[in-house]
């Protein structure tokens, strides 16, 4: 029987990511990893794409992981874990292993949206029994905050610097969760570490599925978002309350929105606490704030419309 998703019960389980890793104070990534590993009820093996999480949890000769863990390169976490999963299946067929083991890949937005995108897409299409978890903090934070295709419109990064010529990143971010849903895989979801029960429920569903699953998790980065170290959870909650990062899932292609704010907050509530959007509040940049609100509204309304199609079917 699986552990009930109550903190009191979960706290009796062993933490499979130790302290002593070198991720920044207040980083969102280790909170996500801890919750993912606490949710898992079967032994898991993980692969990690290059990124903050990989570098800082495995500084030789130390590792913060208490599970078998492999890193090979930036672009191939999904391919690496596919290989591990394929080998497991082969060993099982030959009767050399009989335990049930599940396979998880972790990657940041750089290693998932950009550099590891083709290997991720390939692994999903091949139908490996794996779970890919992206912690999306919206830029290449590890190398010093360079823009990625997950960076939101208007964000100030070192390669989309806000100044008198350009007002931060000129392009909106790409909607990877939707792209993964378009692969037609059995399970796709989006969540945040602030909503720990939602995250853990989704991890369990993803692990239960026989086939590929993808979960996109919003992670705040106080270096890149220019926020205090103590607002990590608060900021990701705001992302959900403003519908910047809706909590939803696709189970066998069917959309379900897991949380609808009673009162949808304006997107400026999410933006104004972050230094990376500070310039948007200067005179002359109002149109970007409006554009961001339009993008958020359009995505949220499209989700509501899509979900209503299923409820009409019953």
């Amino acid at each position, binding site marked *: 029987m699986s552990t009930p998703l109550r*903190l*009191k*019960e*979960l*706290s*009796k389980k062993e*933490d*499979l*990511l*130790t*302290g*002593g*890793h*070198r*991720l*920044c*104070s*207040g*980083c*969102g*990534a*280790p*909170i996500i990893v*801890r*919750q993912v590993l606490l949710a898992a009820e079967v032994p898991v093996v993980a692969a990690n794409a290059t990124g903050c999480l990989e570098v800082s*949890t*495995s*500084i*030789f*000769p*130390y*590792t*913060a*992981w*208490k*599970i078998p863990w492999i890193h090979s390169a930036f672009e191939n976490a999904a391919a690496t874990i596919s290989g591990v999963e394929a080998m497991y299946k082969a060993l099982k067929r030959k009767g050399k292993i009989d335990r049930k083991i599940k396979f998880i890949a972790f990657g940041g937005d750089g290693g998932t949206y950009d550099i590891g995108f083709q290997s991720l897409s390939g692994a999903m299409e091949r139908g490996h029994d794996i779970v890919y978890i992206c912690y999306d903090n919206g830029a290449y934070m590890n190398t010093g905050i360079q823009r990625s295709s997950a960076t939101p419109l208007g964000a100030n990064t070192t390669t989309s610097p806000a100044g008198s010529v350009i007002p931060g990143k000129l392009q909106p971010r790409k909607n990877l969760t939707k792209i993964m849903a378009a692969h037609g895989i059995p399970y796709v979801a989006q969540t945040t*570490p*602030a909503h*720990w029960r939602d995250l853990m429920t989704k991890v369990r569903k993803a692990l239960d599925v026989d086939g590929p699953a993808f979960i996109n998790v919003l992670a705040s980065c106080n270096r890149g978002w220019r926020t*205090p*170290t*103590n*607002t*990590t*959870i*608060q900021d990701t909650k705001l992302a959900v309350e403003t519908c910047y990062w809706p909590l939803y899932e696709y189970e066998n292609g069917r959309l379900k929105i897991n949380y609808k704010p009673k009162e949808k907050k304006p997107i400026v509530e999410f933006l104004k606490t972050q230094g990376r959007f500070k310039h948007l509040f200067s005179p002359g940049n109002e149109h970007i704030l409006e554009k961001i609100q339009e993008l958020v509204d359009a995505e949220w309304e499209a989700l509501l419309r899509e979900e209503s199609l299923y409820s009409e079917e019953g």
Partner: protein
Amino acid sequence: MKLKGWKELEIGAVIPEPGNADNYNTGSWRAFRPQWIEDNCIQCLFCWIYCPDSAVTVKDGKRGEFDYDHCKGCGICANECPGKKGNKAIVMVEEGK
């Protein structure tokens, strides 16, 4: 930890001891120290689930002292603590004071 010579190193940079980062202390990173006030604690364990550094100890479903060897002093626990009747069970105190 004693550093190994090249002849003793594992092939492929394998680290054979799981979770040995536990032996590496990051407590000195802290500028502010969280202080637990047990009387105001409702045992919600939000501090534990939201801690990036596994630095909130829990035994038999009840929280104990902070693990100051690993706590980096980010303050998430204090920020998320609901406390009791408006009184926080975790407050941040400047180190060295």
